[in-house]
């Protein structure tokens, strides 16, 4: 019989140690990615990934199975990222100093792999830069909705569940994202 993890102040019911270990293994890549896309900070994403699983374990008795474990974990991660951004005093400087490098790396990455010929590489880089500019112009909520829908490929319902908002609001965020993309595309 497997030993059940015990954390002070938490009932011993729920996942066993081995089960929780499997959950971590299955979902940590996605959780890290969600956090990294939200924060663009390697260390913070790593720390919050650990916090996310710890929080999930502590709150496991609250998990009713109404949504998937994945969506539930994404929800915890999104909330952690939001709290972190709210509390981060030095975020302005970090973003200012780090964002250009990241974007340059991203642009090069895509140009190298998805467009082998020089002219296609140029086009791909330009397209990516426009998309990044458009995403940057969105509010944090709109960015999260955009990332969860198009990067993590969650359904509209899952995005709504993960963000704790209504389906109509998610659709509105995505429409706003499309509008920003169109505006960027039409810029001279």
């Amino acid at each position, binding site marked *: 019989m497997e030993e059940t993890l015990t954390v002070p102040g938490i009932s011993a019911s729920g996942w066993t140690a081995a089960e929780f270990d499997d959950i*971590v*293994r299955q979902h*940590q*890549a996605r959780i*890290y*990615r969600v956090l*990294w*896309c939200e924060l663009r900070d*390697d*260390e913070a*994403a*790593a*720390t919050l*990934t*650990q916090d996310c*699983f710890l929080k999930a374990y502590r709150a496991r008795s609250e998990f009713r199975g109404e949504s998937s474990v994945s969506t539930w974990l994404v929800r915890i991660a999104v909330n952690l990222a939001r709290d972190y951004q709210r509390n981060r005093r030095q975020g302005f400087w970090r973003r200012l100093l780090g964002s250009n490098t*990241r974007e340059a*790396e*991203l*642009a090069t*990455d*895509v140009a190298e*792999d*998805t467009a082998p010929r020089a002219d296609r590489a140029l086009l*791909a880089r330009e*397209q*990516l830069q*426009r*998309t*990044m500019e458009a*995403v940057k112009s969105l509010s944090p909520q709109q960015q999260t909705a955009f*990332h969860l*829908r*198009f*990067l993590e490929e969650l359904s*509209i319902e899952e995005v709504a569940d993960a963000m704790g908002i209504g389906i109509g609001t998610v*659709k509105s965020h*995505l*429409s*706003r*994202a*499309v*509008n920003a*993309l*169109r505006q960027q*595309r039409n810029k001279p």
Partner: protein
Amino acid sequence: MNHLTDEQLAQWLEGGGNPQTQSHLAGCAQCRSEAEELRDGISRYAIAMRRQADRAQSLSLGGYFAPQKAWARHRLRWAAATALALLLAAPTLWMMNKPHPQGPLVVSAPVPAQPAAALSDDELLEAVNNDLSREVPQALAPVSAITTGRNRIAAASTVAAIPSNLSAR
């Protein structure tokens, strides 16, 4: 002709859209081009972000949830910072504790080299003269010195007795 709205394009990007949107795209080259371009841009963005995140994750987590690794990295950083601080402080400490062969360093006005050399030459010359003029054995030197001293005093008193106008001649 009304082109597709943001909502319709968003729906199409989410996975097809309704038949009305589909038929519009089939007949409108402008909307089709725009929709395809947006889709490609989003797709490239998603690929690039996923790749960057995976790369960052492999560096940050080392593949698995590992608080020990994070702590080890933290300690390594502190060790490197300490080593760097010591390295930077070492020349200053060495300068402060450097042994001075001629005693502690005293800052003073520079002494002209020439008079010191002249004094030394005079001393040397005097010593040579003394050696050459020595007429008594070494053992009797103290007695000789007393005698010489008496003679000098006597000579000095004689000179003092001579009027200054005569001694100047």
